[in-house]
């Protein structure tokens, strides 16, 4: 465990010692909440054969899109690639192996690991195509599919604000998968715009308590706001 007083570090120290073949969770739903600065550092540090877990594949040329295009990703566990045609092409050509889960089940599989369970029972998707390969059991008169927990070696998350101990606050729809992933990996690296002195974050507004966080890295807005697909309704 990282000690409370030793969590703040720079990008290089935070991202050191990630292995080839590591399983890495990445927060974000589209651009909001995507830890772009941590992903750029991961790209620069060169690991191969990564398994990534992210709701989506960002867009071509940003976020995990860059890692996929650089041939660094072996497998992607995700919910939807709709905004990234290059990721869909990489899937169709067999360059990356893609596993799809319904979005809410993906969220719960991650949370399940985060709270120390082995899995959960769901009735979502029974007798549809996504049910293939799932174990089913009968319990109290119903049929339930078992969804195993999904854990990772490393989680990369983005928070609006943090303190030195690693307490995190997310903002608006940049929350999404971040609080769940922040619990579900052995090592959790958080990027944030602002690192406060402990005691400065209102205690009722902290979303992720510091117990789960390994490293906190301050990033500027410029290095972490990417995304071209945004538009009005």
């Amino acid at each position, binding site marked *: 465990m990282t000690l409370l007083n030793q969590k703040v570090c720079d990008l290089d120290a935070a991202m050191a010692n990630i292995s080839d073949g590591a399983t890495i969770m990445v927060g974000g739903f589209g651009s909001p909440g995507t830890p772009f600065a941590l992903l750029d550092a991961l790209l620069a540090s060169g690991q191969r054969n990564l398994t990534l877990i992210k709701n989506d594949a960002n867009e071509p040329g940003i976020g995990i899109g860059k890692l996929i295009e650089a041939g660094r990703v072996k497998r992607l566990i995700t919910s939807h690639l709709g*905004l990234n045609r290059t990721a869909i092409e990489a899937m169709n050509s067999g360059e990356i192996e893609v596993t799809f889960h319904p979005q809410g089940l993906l969220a719960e599989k991650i949370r399940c690991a985060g709270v120390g369970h082995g899995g959960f029972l769901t009735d979502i998707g029974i007798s549809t195509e996504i049910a293939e390969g799932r174990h089913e059991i009968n319990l109290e008169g119903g049929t339930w599919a078992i969804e195993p927990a999904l854990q990772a070696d490393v989680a990369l998350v983005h928070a609006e604000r943090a303190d030195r101990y690693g307490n995190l606050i997310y903002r608006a729809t940049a929350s*999404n998968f971040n609080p769940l992933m922040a619990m579900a990996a052995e090592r959790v690296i958080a990027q944030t715009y602002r690192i406060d002195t402990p005691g400065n974050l209102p205690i009722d507004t902290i979303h992720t308590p510091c117990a789960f966080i390994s490293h906190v890295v301050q990033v500027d807005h410029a290095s972490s706001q990417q995304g071209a697909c945004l538009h009005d*309704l």
Partner: protein
Amino acid sequence: MISDQQRILTRAAREVTDGQIVNLGIGLPTRLFHYLPDDMNVLVHSENGVLGCRPRQEGELPDSDMIDSGGAYIATRAGASVFDSAMSFAMIRRSRIDVTFMGAFEVDQEGNLANWKIPGKFSPGIGGAMELAQKVARLVVLCSHNDKHGNPKILTRCQLPLTASRCVARIITEKAVMDVTPAGLEVVEVAEGLGIEALREATNATLLIDESRLGRF
């Protein structure tokens, strides 16, 4: 003249009543946003983690942390809340959303819906569609009556991989408003100026039509 999409959306807006929680699927249903009166106590849910979103108004600065599930910049209205993906789908799986509007590749008279995958052609992933279709209290399909080649999308039986089975309550197209019943699709309303025979020809499903009770829209 009113376009097909406008006809669908105008009619769909009448499905929403004061006090409801509503989810709008990606594509055509998202545009329903602009057809809901501002003064209604209605909260629109977007599964990326917001309840109470509204379109950004002209001149309102975009907030890069505030998008809907289709990636569009949104704003929030009074009574809104934001939350993580687990909470967002808890609302869905617990049927705490009163009505969801979704598009369709195919929908059939048993209420089965296919809107996520065309094997070999289109498979970007399931997203939140499966949980929405299976669990939201009331699912209304908004889609064109026929595909771009003129083939019926309203079928006796879906051929594509299903999003969820027996999940659709009502279908609204530019041609008709149809309810799923055990006996077939009950036509509730037909578009102004459209004949019954023309509707039947455009449809590949059992249509139950009682002309004495038929509405127009």
